[in-house]
């Protein structure tokens, strides 16, 4: 058995390991469009917040890479959050949800902000009551989920269905990976730097990240602030301090500010900070430019579901 595995390692695995990044699918075939559209309505509906001022879209704004351009989001009654709101694009490919990965899937995640005091501040009963008061929703849910009272489960299910449809395919880099185009010289060099400097060690896979946890300040210690919800907040293990889910780099150019604490206002700043703390190097201006060029190629198309009638 182990000999066989060794054989695999030596002869087959290298082929598999040629590119550590994989393109997004161009089409999804596991989506119920009707449910996704209903989810889309819900996503934009402020009914789902206690004072009816906030929708999901308030903090996952599609004009800003499905993230929040503000350092922290404002919830109901202008309550301030703690963490910088991450993008909801391609979130189906995140191995865990939230910065500290406390939700293992989108369904679990969606529950969070709805109930969260500083976000939408609802209770399951309130959500169901609000939705059931609406003729539109009652009919729409009846058509898709069967007659009867609209349940929280089905409400979240529709939102999740919408979120699953939020992929940004056909980025320049994906097309490059598929062999459709060639990158510019700068982009190509940026990608090489991305690999040789070690960024790719954590930012890999289909979502260019979002598949492991990593410590902010791996090589050089990053200042620790207990107000942030890191892995430590969950596990209380010392080595989990400042440990977060590695964020996706797809559409990274659209989702400033950066990091869980929004300390990096622009991408170059973020690249330098990452190099300094996590790679233990001071990345040169020239390299930052190259890396920036490369990261731009990860900007994909606006999800089709957003513009469907």
């Amino acid at each position: 058995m182990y000999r066989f595995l060794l054989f695999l390692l030596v002869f087959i695995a290298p082929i598999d390991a040629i590119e550590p990044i994989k393109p997004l699918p161009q089409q999804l075939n596991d989506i119920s469009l009707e449910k996704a559209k209903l989810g889309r309505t819900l996503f934009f509906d402020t009914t789902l917040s206690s004072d009816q001022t906030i929708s999901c879209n308030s903090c996952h704004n599609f004009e800003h890479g499905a993230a929040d351009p503000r350092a922290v989001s404002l919830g109901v009654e202008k309550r301030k959050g703690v963490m910088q709101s991450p993008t909801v694009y391609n979130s189906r490919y995140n191995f865990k949800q939230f910065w500290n990965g406390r939700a293992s899937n989108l369904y679990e995640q969606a529950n969070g902000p709805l109930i969260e005091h500083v976000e939408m501040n609802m209770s399951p009963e309130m959500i169901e009551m609000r939705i059931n008061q609406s003729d539109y929703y009652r009919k729409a849910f009846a058509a898709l989920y069967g007659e009867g009272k609209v349940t929280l489960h089905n409400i979240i299910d529709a939102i999740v269905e919408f979120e699953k449809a939020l992929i940004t395919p056909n980025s320049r880099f994906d097309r490059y990976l598929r062999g459709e185009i060639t990158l510019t010289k700068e982009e190509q060099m940026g990608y090489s730097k991305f690999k040789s400097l070690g960024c790719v060690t954590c930012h890999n896979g289909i979502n260019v990240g979002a598949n492991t946890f990593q410590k902010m300040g791996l090589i050089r210690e990053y200042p620790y602030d207990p107000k942030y919800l890191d892995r430590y907040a969950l596990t209380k293990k010392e080595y989990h301090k400042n440990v977060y889910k590695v964020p996706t780099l797809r559409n990274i150019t659209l989702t400033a500010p950066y990091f869980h604490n929004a300390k990096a206002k622009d991408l170059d700043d973020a690249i330098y900070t990452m190099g300094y703390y996590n790679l233990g190097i001071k990345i040169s201006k020239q390299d930052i430019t190259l890396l920036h060029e490369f990261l731009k190629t990860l900007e994909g198309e606006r999800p089709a579901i957003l513009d469907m009638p």
Partner: protein
Amino acid sequence: MTKKLFVAVTLGVFSIALIGYYYFHQRSYAQQYKTVVNGFNTLQNSYNKLSYKILKSALYGYSDQDDISSGMQKLNLDYANLYNAPLLHEEQYLPLDYPLIDLGMRVADYNSAIEHYLMLNAGIKNSFVFLLNYSETAHDLFPNDASIHKDINIIISELSSMRRLLDKDHLSTINVHLGHLKQFPITDDAQKEFIETVALHINYIQSNFPAFITIINTLQNKEVEISLNSLKEHFNQIAQTDFVLIDALAFLLLFLIISAMVVIILLLTRSQNENRRLKRLKEELEYAANFDILTGLLNRNSLNKTLQQHHYKRPMFLLININGFKHVNDLYGAQMGDYILQEVSQLIKLPIFGAYNPSYYRLGGDDFGVLLEDVSDKKAFSFSEALTQSIKHFIFVDNEIEINITISIAINAIAPLLENADMVLKHYKKRQAETIVQFTPELNLKEHIQNNINVLQSLSLAISEDRIIPCFQPIIELKSGQIVKYEALVRQLNPDGSLSTPDVFLELAAQTPLYRELTQIMIEKVFTAFSDQPYRFSINLSMQDLLDKELMAMLETLLIANPESAKRLEIELLESENLFDIQATEHFITLLKSYGCRIAIDDFGTGYSNFFYLAKLSIDTLKIDGSLISKIISDEKYLKTVEAIVHYAQIIGVETVAEFVETQEVALKLREMGVTYGQGYYFGKPQRSIIENKIIL
């Protein structure tokens, strides 16, 4: 039978119910069991794959960690599926709760170890990449300083070994060279930054390596696998019990089915046997209804049926009777009798009968019948002749005893065939032992039989009306001419006052119970008549009477009660052609003599009586048969015969009585010859009363 049937049906129904239960139980159990085993295998598989992916990530600079994260998710999912397998939450699997939860903890530990490993591995990997890249930079920054290159090279080499061998001991060596590096006299900021950065990475590796080794070891501990195997083992132990139960159920089921089958087979066999027995019985009954069991011939019933159903053209019936068959049975036993009947049943099938549509019957006892069609009287006679000859000359041998028999045949073509033949045969057989007779209406046999019936009815009536009376015929002592004794003779007094003599009724009565009554009445009445008379008196008794124990007992009672009369009683023994039991006779004579009775032989000289009897038995008197006496005057031969008898009697000292004395001439002649007594019409006919003593001769 019904009970067994009930048992079989119950067993059957129970078996079917059990089969149903067994099937569904077994199927659901098998499915659940499969779910669990699949759960084990899937989990094991996912674990193996994940281990492989980790190994891969350790070896390659770039690796797509989606693989690992999806593997971790898969492992969690597999565990959740296994945990949710319904079978594991059945009561008997409760002991698995702890191992199951333990496995869950191991999986969680494993996953968090992987997460930790990935964090460390990323840093260490990157630091190595950095160090390897920066050694090139070192050449640019320190073009003329070999020692720094050497230190860096040694450090890299040591770090590589350490990483490869997972051995922390290299750290001390590394520290020495790191010390060299830090003390290197730097000349510019670039150099300073270089050394600081190199130190940073070396320090990173140094400080994280122990944790890295620990985490590698943790991953290699295979605690998931160990826990999984322990769970599997536990599970299999419990499942074994379940399988044993299922097996036991299967065996029980098999046993039940076999039992039901055995009962059914038993029932079937029994019912078959019963049917067979009934069929055989039916056949036997049918056979017995139509056939004679002993000889295999058709029986009387068959004959009647045949005669009714088949309209024979000129039927001819031969009724065959074995002469003296009763004697054969008496002398040689029933076995011989049966043997003879069987042989005769075959002997009567003459080949010549074949042409006349024959059928053969045993009609009961020693009567056989042959039914033929379209046979003339003449032919019937000649066939019968042939048949009698054939049987006469056939030697029957059984148990080394050889005997011959003869038959009589009655031929009859007139309905009713059997009855007529029977009638004529019985009629003629009285006279002739061996005969072939034919029934003809002219024989008036029916009238004859009716007459016999009338006689017996009349006799029966006479007995009931006390009209059986004794008559007394005097017997004269020839020397003195005086009546010395009387012979009592039975008479039936008819309503018209006439008397019937025994030749009318006695022969017929002898075959009926009336005969004993007759004898009893006679003895009683005679004893009464002579109780106060001085005369001797005689009573006739036949062999049949002597053999009648009840009658003999009654006689003895009378003798004891009347000892005086007994001394005057003389018994005249009648000859019998059929029976002469010498022993019984001797016994009888001895008995009566003890009471003082005398014994006479009746009808001596014509019957079967012989000198042997005279010699053997203590006889007192010989009564010379009347047929001899009546002719002594006219025929010299008769005279001589009587003389010889008388002479013989005188020699052996026996008195003689001459019967049928009808004339004085005869009486005188007899006296002259020395006959002791005379009896006959000359001296007096039988009278209802005793005549007074007077001289007659």
